């Protein structure tokens, strides 16, 4: 180990086909973007308009862009997993060895959870929540920027092993010890895992605090808690869960790191350590994490169903109670992930039954959505398609979930492909379809033009058919005794046709993804014909639709006063009798200044993570000092806001009205 380079040596540079491939594609992507920016002379524009932005609408878009890139990375992993499992039967051992195969599914899981689903959700929450509550900005705009950059730093760290080290964790997405301890995983793979999750996890925690404060303190006058839109409610609950459980993740990973770096024995099997403690801790975070992903999606479905049925959401209070119950139960059920670990019958029964209770509020939400549709005037726009697809898939996934909540059944289904199919149904059918519903629903609001409906619906059908073709075989394979994470199996078992079918499903899904990309390209090209001029393309119900599309940086020139639950819908009903907006004049608006400090700080954190992976002590210390210096500079900066004078606001508003 050298003082200057730590454990880093030339042998860490890429020398296998997949690390070379990863490195080259990362370099090519970077060069492509750089060339485009240079050619169009947009470097400065990128820096001042986007990278340093503290506007949640811009940060939201950046979250979604990064999450989309990571979705392709995660999908590529999925394809490689399926290819291996379709080929590696009997005498054939496929094209991957076990070590590489295990790294791929570990990366697939971590990327899809931490960098795709979380990224999309934070993006949507950033874009929509301030608009829904009638706020001009977040409580802590700079922290929001920092949270995004930490998320991106984590995303880069999880891909950096392609360039340095060539090895990711081969331990499964939660890196359970003793396998993840130094004794069994001596390479840098687990260290990359530790630091990418640590860095992005802190970004998530910061974001969670920010949104809780924003939602609780910055709502428009008159918007009491029980007048908040459902998406804001579920985002709030999800963020409360973030603040409750992400510290557990941070501490657990820190303890694992202490084991690995300083030879401590928190989770080793000997010297008094206990791996079961890690399993408990990681699932105390891991199970609520699932609900952190799904709750905002529930909120999106509530908005979509009410809007496209043109009716008030049925049972609003009941929905809020249901979402709170889901969150409350979410922290009480972690043990159901390891019923097979030898806990007594009473312990297993307690955690099994509390898990089943979650089905009650979830079921209530579905019934309430159906009641909202009852006697509505339903238009089947893309978001409504995703909602229907969600109910169709999620109910089956939910049945599988309640089934596995019964410990006696779980003994037979645990860690089988049945489980894999179950959680993919929940995350794809629940969270990802919700994200797609949200993106297609709010796309006109964010960009100012509508998405092509025909291509979007076609993409939906590819997705839904591909989904069933992919995952129903996995449910069956689970019943056949196929366990997860197998890189090879015997031909006599008769599993291969089902694995191949699942792969066909993946191909169908990828057609859906291609159509979605094509849809965005086509919609962008013909955007002039599809402009959202009114700002309210769906006859919406909540405040975000009262702003122009895209909204101005300050969201609302005049903060609306809220009197009803579906604030904007009610305003539209009263529009002729009451012109309350005209009663007030424009006032000065205080806006956060752009700052690059989020990038600098996250940059130092990134370097710190890298230094820790490779044990480069001096670099870790230097970057840590850099972090502290950044924080001090930022804390001493008093001029973080600028004022938009009332006259300027009036001019901008007039311009807009004139233009329309």
């Amino acid at each position: 180990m050298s003082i200057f380079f730590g454990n880093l040596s030339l042998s860490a540079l890429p020398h296998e086909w997949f690390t070379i491939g990863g490195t080259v594609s990362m370099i090519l992507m970077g060069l492509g973007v750089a060339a485009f920016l240079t050619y169009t002379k947009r470097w400065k524009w990128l820096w001042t308009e986007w990278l340093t932005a503290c506007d949640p609408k811009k940060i939201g878009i950046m979250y979604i862009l990064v999450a989309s890139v990571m979705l392709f990375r995660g999908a590529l992993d999925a394809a490689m997993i399926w290819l291996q499992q379709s080929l590696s039967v009997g005498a054939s051992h496929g094209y991957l060895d076990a070590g590489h195969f295990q790294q791929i599914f570990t990366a697939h899981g971590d990327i899809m959870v931490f960098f795709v689903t979380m990224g999309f959700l934070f993006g949507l929450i950033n874009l929509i929540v301030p608009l829904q509550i009638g706020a001009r900005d977040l409580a802590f705009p700079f922290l929001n920027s920092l949270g995004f950059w930490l998320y991106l730093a984590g995303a880069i760290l999880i891909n950096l092993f392609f360039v340095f080290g060539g090895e990711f964790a081969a331990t499964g997405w939660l890196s359970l010890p003793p396998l993840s301890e130094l004794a069994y995983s001596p390479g840098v793979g687990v260290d990359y895992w530790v630091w990418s999750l640590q860095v992005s996890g802190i970004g998530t925690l910061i974001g969670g605090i920010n949104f809780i404060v924003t939602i609780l303190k910055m709502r428009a006058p008159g918007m009491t808690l029980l007048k908040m839109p459902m998406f804001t409610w579920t985002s709030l609950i999800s963020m409360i869960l973030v603040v409750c459980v992400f510290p557990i993740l941070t501490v657990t990973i820190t303890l694992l790191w202490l084991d690995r770096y300083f030879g401590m024995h928190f989770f080793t099997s000997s010297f008094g350590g206990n791996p079961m403690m890690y399993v408990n801790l990681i699932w105390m975070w891991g199970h609520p994490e699932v609900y952190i992903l799904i709750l905002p999606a529930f909120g999106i479905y509530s908005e979509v169903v009410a809007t496209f049925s043109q009716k008030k959401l049925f049972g609003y209070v009941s929905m809020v109670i249901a979402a709170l119950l889901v969150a409350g139960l979410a922290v009480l059920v972690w043990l159901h992930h390891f019923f097979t670990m030898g806990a007594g019958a009473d312990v297993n029964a307690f955690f099994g039954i509390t898990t089943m209770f979650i089905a009650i509020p979830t079921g209530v939400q579905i019934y309430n959505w159906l009641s909202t549709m009852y006697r509505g005037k339903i238009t089947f726009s893309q978001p409504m398609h995703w909602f229907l697809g969600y109910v169709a898939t999620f109910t089956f996934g939910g049945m599988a979930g309640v089934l596995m909540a019964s410990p006696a059944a779980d003994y037979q289904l645990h860690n089988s492909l049945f489980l894999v199919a179950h959680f993919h149904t929940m995350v794809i059918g629940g969270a990802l379809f919700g994200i797609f519903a949200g993106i297609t629903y709010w796309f006109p609001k964010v960009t100012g033009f509508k998405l092509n409906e025909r291509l979007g619906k076609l993409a939906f059908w590819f997705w839904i058919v591909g989904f069933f073709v992919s995952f129903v075989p996995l449910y069956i394979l689970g019943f056949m005794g196929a366990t997860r994470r197998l890189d090879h199996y015997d031909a006599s078992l008769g599993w291969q046709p089902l694995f191949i079918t699942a792969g066909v499903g993946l191909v169908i899904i990828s057609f859906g993804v291609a159509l979605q990309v094509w849809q965005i390209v086509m919609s962008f090209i013909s955007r002039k014909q599809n402009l959202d001029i009114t700002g309210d393309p769906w006859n919406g119900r909540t405040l975000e639709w009262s702003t122009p599309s895209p909204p101005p940086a300050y969201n609302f020139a005049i903060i609306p006063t809220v009197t009803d639950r579906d604030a904007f819908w009610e305003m539209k009903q009263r529009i002729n009798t009451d012109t309350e907006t005209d009663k007030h004049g424009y006032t000065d608006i205080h806006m956060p200044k752009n700052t690059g400090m989020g990038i600098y700080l996250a940059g130092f954190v990134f370097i710190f993570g890298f230094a820790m992976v490779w044990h480069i002590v001096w670099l870790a210390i230097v970057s840590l000092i850099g972090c502290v210096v950044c924080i001090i500079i930022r804390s001493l900066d008093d001029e973080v806001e600028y004022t938009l004078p009332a006259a300027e606001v009036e001019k901008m508003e007039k311009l807009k009205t004139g233009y329309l």
Partner: protein
Amino acid sequence: MKPKYKFVILTILFSLIAFFLLWLTKNSNIAVLNPKGLIAASERRVIVTSLLLMLLAVVPALTMLFLFAYRFRASNPKNNYNPNYSLDSRMQILWWGLPIAVILVLAVLTFKSVHQLDPFKALNSPNRPLTIQVVALNWKWLFIYPEQNIATVNFIQIPQKTPIHFELTADAPMNLFWVPQLGGQMSAMQGMSTQLNLMANEAGEYNGSASEINGKGLAGMRFVVKAASQEDFNSWAQSVKNSSKPLSLETYSKLAEPSENNPKALYSSVESDLFKSVMMKYMSGEPEKSE
């Protein structure tokens, strides 16, 4: 396209997919649904009963979904839309009551089944139980028969209709032991002993596997459980005793070294209290060996 036709096309498409999948599985053994053991049969009963009960809440939901989507579509000329119409809020009693009722019944069944099928619980049988000690190694299974004083690797022979009492530990990262046709999984962990009680109802060969990730040899940790008559078992045990290889501490530490895709192996005798000493290794504070 008319919504009716769309619905018909979809129904046909998904039925075709379903039939295709059924056809694919016609020659395969759907192990969990084809139990050959006392416990596995009970566990299948739990699975089937729970699923049927849940359908009570799921079928109405899915029926209403498609019915409402069809009936209340904007293009329906018979649509009696009213923006201010709301179902009676007393409907909430039904919407909460239905899932609560289903889940409460399920909870009672679960409470019963989890106690009845507790893996640690000894099975009732006129036949005397046979104890097998299981050690999960990197990457093979070691099975010790303390009463017969023999051991095997990646192979278990058992008498049918006799309770088998497994004691499990690991001398490698934690693992899960699973013979789907006989019953559910149980963890094997370093420095700890867990228990699993199974019984084969009929003679046959059943696949077993490891289901927790434990390193690169995971996929090769398959084994076979052969259930046959008590006489067959006795003569098999005798033949193993007569074979040449004993499992001494030395052979054990060689066996415990990482190796993949191990063939079946038999040992004529076992170092006394090997299982216990493997377990105690982690109690005395001896550090884990690096690969």
